[in-house]
């Protein structure tokens, strides 16, 4: 018997549905395509809307980075997002583990208290944070950009869920073997929740890389801007130079696109796992 006989017939309806879905998907990424295409055009070509520039040029990128400000903003975003992510991974998983695996008085109170912080919108906290930063000299510092996000209620909640699935016997066995409490967490429990850790890492990093409101508030010196704040100010200054605005937008977006392409599988699983980004 030939395999063809067993192959299900492809209904015409399915082909139509597939085609429409694929077209919709292409429409979804058109803003990226136009952004990159325009960033490769000279000012005279901007009004020519063809997708593939006649004479693509990297001139805009050279001009953008010649200015050094963008490079500066890149470093700021990279450093602050990385430190916040490391801090979140360390503390959120440690707290999640403690709340999942230790029996002690006050445990549920601490958990509910941390959970309740999820109901407080950032917008309500930014003004007290700003006043706090102003009186402590944290305005225009990395610390000022980073401190609100160093530990998150959401991450604690996520990690607690995952540590609950780690069997108690494993931890007890490690105790009998004489491992210290810290090393039980670090060497025994933590390796068992790497899927949750990678999801938390990716979302924390991207969330901080794209964050706008708080960095906008806490920085006023251009040297301290993060990429989104810098781009916003750069674009307002270059309002009529759309090829430069698009180059700035492309430079800000390309790192997130790379993260997505590399980690797509983890990211999609992470969204389903955790239900949200922040």
């Amino acid at each position, binding site marked *: 018997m030939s395999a063809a006989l067993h192959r299900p017939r492809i209904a015409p309806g399915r082909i139509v549905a597939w085609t429409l879905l694929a077209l919709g998907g292409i429409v979804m990424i058109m803003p990226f395509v136009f952004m990159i295409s325009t960033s490769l055009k000279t000012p005279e070509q*901007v009004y020519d809307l063809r997708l593939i520039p006649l004479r693509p040029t990297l001139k805009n990128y050279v001009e953008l980075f010649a200015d050094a400000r963008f490079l500066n903003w890149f470093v700021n975003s990279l450093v602050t997002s990385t430190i916040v992510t490391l801090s979140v991974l360390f*503390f959120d998983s440690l*707290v999640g583990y403690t709340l999942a695996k230790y029996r002690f008085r006050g*445990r549920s109170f601490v958990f509910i208290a941390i959970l309740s912080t999820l*109901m407080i919108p950032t917008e309500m906290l930014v003004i007290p944070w700003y006043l706090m930063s102003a009186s402590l000299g944290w305005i225009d510092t990395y610390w000022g950009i980073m401190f609100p996000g160093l530990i998150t209620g959401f991450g604690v909640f996520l990690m607690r869920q995952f540590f609950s699935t780690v069997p108690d016997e494993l931890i007890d066995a490690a105790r009998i073997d004489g491992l210290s409490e810290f090393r039980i967490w670090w060497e025994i429990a933590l390796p068992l929740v790497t899927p949750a850790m990678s999801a938390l890492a990716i979302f924390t990093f991207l969330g901080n890389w794209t964050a706008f409101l708080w960095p906008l508030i806490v920085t006023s010196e251009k040297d301290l801007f993060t990429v989104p704040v810098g781009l916003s100010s750069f674009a307002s200054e270059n309002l009529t130079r759309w090829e430069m605005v698009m180059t700035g937008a492309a430079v800000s977006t390309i790192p997130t696109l790379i993260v997505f392409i590399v980690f797509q599988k983890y990211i999609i699983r992470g*969204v389903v796992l955790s239900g949200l*980004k922040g």
Partner: protein
Amino acid sequence: MYDRLTIHQKQAFWAWVFLAVPVVFFIVVRFYPTFDAAWISLTNWSLFREPKFIGLANYKEMFQDPVFWKVFANTFKYLALGLPVSLLISFTVAYYLDRVRFMHGLIRGLYFVPYLTTAVAMAWVWRWFYQPVPIGLFNDALSAVGLPQQPFLRSVDQALPSVLAPAIWAGLGFQVIIFLAGLRAIPETYYEAARIDGVGAWTILWEITLPLLKPTLLFLIVISSIGFLRIFDQVYNMTVDGQGGPLNATRPLVLNIYNSAFVDYDMGYATAQTMVLFLVLLVITIVQLRLLRSK
């Protein structure tokens, strides 16, 4: 000393060692500012003078301020337009994508990318799309097929939906992924039974798929509502000088809060508005919890 503790006491000891720094953090960076915000809203604090307790004067000013009501209405316009449109599109996409095997992951990826990218950068790309001819893509396309030009961001009527569009666009992928997970969780046997009974696709959708999708739908409604009510990045970057114009037509609550606090330096008035935002979001969360429990 430590060696004399019982196993339970040792556990409690280590638990509090591990929790010490985070507990201080949550008190200083989350709880104290929350109460501080409530207190500031009762003062006339600007950065340039000492705060003075003025009771509910900020709230009174707010309720008499036509701009506040305009902004409040705008905020709910974003929600009322954004929620149904985004859920309808994302459900349709997920519903069909669920049956597609060929290049499933790639197509899903195409819908999802905008969710992860910098909203500020994308706001500027969309702002460019909306420019008049010969710059803007949309108007160029309209004129190419002989349709009249549209003012988009320059029009009091069109500006709000124009600013909303990139926010909907950016959130679609997230909604699609959650819908897909919800659809996957529906047991295949339900569909098989329905097919054996000769039930049509439309009836299956309304009688099986959607009712079983209720928790997913509820989750997405709450998360997306909160997202639309907190819209800021797009408005700040797509309107002239980030003012939410023309004539405040696009200004949402968060932008008004930002302006009160960091343009007018009226911290008391700004925090009073954040209390309103907090209450609105709280009501939505409580309604969600109720609905989930009643299930």
